[in-house]
């Protein structure tokens, strides 16, 4: 068995506006290296909320989160930013690329921020990632010149640039048509099988979920099946 890379211990979260509602109730689970996990559940059951906590962007919760066996509680904002930069690749439902930069530069930015490799190397790597996703020809376009499916692939390339421990996605195919969803899904599958990449993907697409290694099903802020 592979080592554990992500562990949630009794994570709970409540919103207090306008009234106190507990959206996550003692969520506990763990992921191993190379796992391809999907999270499903009805709209409003707390999937996105959980993902924001797991990605360290939301720090307002009870319970413990361990990434790479390191507890995330009590870490400072800048330290969490570093964790996100090094260890987590995030793919959103909306592509969220920076239109001021070229496609290639968008992919490079987290790599440049990491600052381990020279700009030249980062550029080379970014190009490789675009190649894996089959969009190397668009490298020098601006993001707003791409189709939705292409943008999402650029976002995946960006998530991959620092060879993260885990890629998280919040309905990454939610905004795409059938064909593009399939392309993105195949990419995820290839990453999991060929590159042994760990993935945690929230989805509404049950067909998609069925093909992942493991399904976590949520309801009313609780895990009911995993």
């Amino acid at each position, binding site marked *: 068995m592979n080592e554990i890379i992500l562990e949630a211990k009794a994570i709970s979260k409540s919103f207090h506006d306008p009234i106190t509602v507990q959206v996550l109730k003692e969520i506990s689970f763990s992921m191993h290296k190379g796992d391809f996990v999907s999270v499903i559940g009805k709209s409003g059951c707390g999937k*996105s909320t959980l993902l924001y906590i797991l990605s360290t962007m939301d720090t307002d919760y009870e319970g413990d989160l361990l990434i790479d066996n390191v507890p995330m509680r009590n870490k400072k904002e800048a330290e969490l930013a570093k964790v996100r930069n090094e260890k987590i690749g995030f793919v959103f439902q909306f592509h969220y690329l*920076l239109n001021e930069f070229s496609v290639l530069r968008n992919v490079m930015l987290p790599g440049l921020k990491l600052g381990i490799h020279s700009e030249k190397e980062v550029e080379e790597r970014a190009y490789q990632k675009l190649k894996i996703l089959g969009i190397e020809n668009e490298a020098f376009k601006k993001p707003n010149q791409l189709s939705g499916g292409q943008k999402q692939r650029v976002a995946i390339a960006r998530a991959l640039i620092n060879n993260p421990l885990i890629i998280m996605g919040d309905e990454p195919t939610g905004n795409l048509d059938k064909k593009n969803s399939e392309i993105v899904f195949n990419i995820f599958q290839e990453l999991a099988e060929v590159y042994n990449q760990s993935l945690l993907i929230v989805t509404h697409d049950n067909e998609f979920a069925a093909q992942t290694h493991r399904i976590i099903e949520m309801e009313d802020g609780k895990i009911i099946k995993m």
Partner: protein
Amino acid sequence: MKYKLILSISKSLLLARWKQTLVAAIGVTFSITMFITLLSFMSGLNDMLDNLIINRTPHVRLYNEIQPSKIQPIDNYSQYKNYHNFVSSIKPKNERLEIYNNAAIIKALKKDIRVLGIAPKITAQVIYNVGAIDITGVINGIDVEAENKLFFFKDYVTTGNYIDLKNTPNSIILGKGAADKMLANIGDVIQVTTTKGDRMQLKVVGYFQSGLQDLDKVQSYASITTAQKLMGESNSFITDIQIKLKDMRSAPVIAIEYQKLFEVEAIDIQTANSQFETGSSVRTIISYAVGVTLLIVAGFGIYNILNMMIYEKMDSIAILKATGFSGKDVNRIFITIALSIGIFGGSMGLIFGFGLSNVIDQIPFNTAALPTIKTFPINYNPKFYMIGSIFSLVTTYFAGYFPSRKASKIDPVIIIRGK
């Protein structure tokens, strides 16, 4: 490496909204341009007006004054030492205006390292005789070369050559106003009478114009030997010693010191001309106030534009944060944007400010009162450029500070969820 990245991100964000950025930069440019021009011009004018006085006023002047003796004979009488003595109708005794022992004093002054230069002088009350009419006046007997070195005598001799005063025996340079009254031309011989009644013929070799009309109606210049002859005194006679110091600000202290040391009267320039100091400092304050106001207005422009930019770039900021940029990085990016606007706008402002000052410097400005001034006066003091650049950086920094802080506090979850 890290700063290079922040710089490149800032640059991209800036260029993406280059029109707004340009407007903000132009605001800074305009205010710095005006700041530089205003201060250069104002301080040029100030210097001109001050020089009117300061150039020709000694920092310390040593002289004798006719005044009653401070110690009356009764004070020396030991029996009445502890009494309060009333003496009425004291008159000044027959004391001469001459500075005694002036050769020794001058020698001592020349050794004083605080002293820049010394020019001896004789002030003689005279009456110019023009036909049947007499006009009162003052003849200053000067050491022509020392006077020129310390008080730029040459600049104020508008007609004729100042050195003729030294080279031509019994010559005089008349104040322009006095010359006009007497209808005296260059080369004419005029007659003057001293207060003691002695008469003397003097040859006019030039006109003098100080810029102060009242002065020019009265004052004339002769060489020190001519003045001594005129007054019938020996060649050791002088009435004033004019001193220029290396540091003008020390004048009041030194004046008091010399007064004690040489047992003469001493007056410093600050006491003699206090009103000028006040005038120029008020003018300086006004120009600074206007300049600073302009800069602050430009600062608000930058503040607005940055605020707007941050509003537009919410998504980008959220993404940067989600992909591992910290709040501090985001803060730095926006501060860099603000400072770039400040540096670019500010340096353009310095260049334009210099240009505009130069243009004003070329504009002819002729006035009878100021014979040495041909164009508007400009003071190209590097200090203004320093203050201008520091101020443009400080205002843009503060204009960027609050928007940047706001940007760094943006919570990516709220933005991403909000889509």
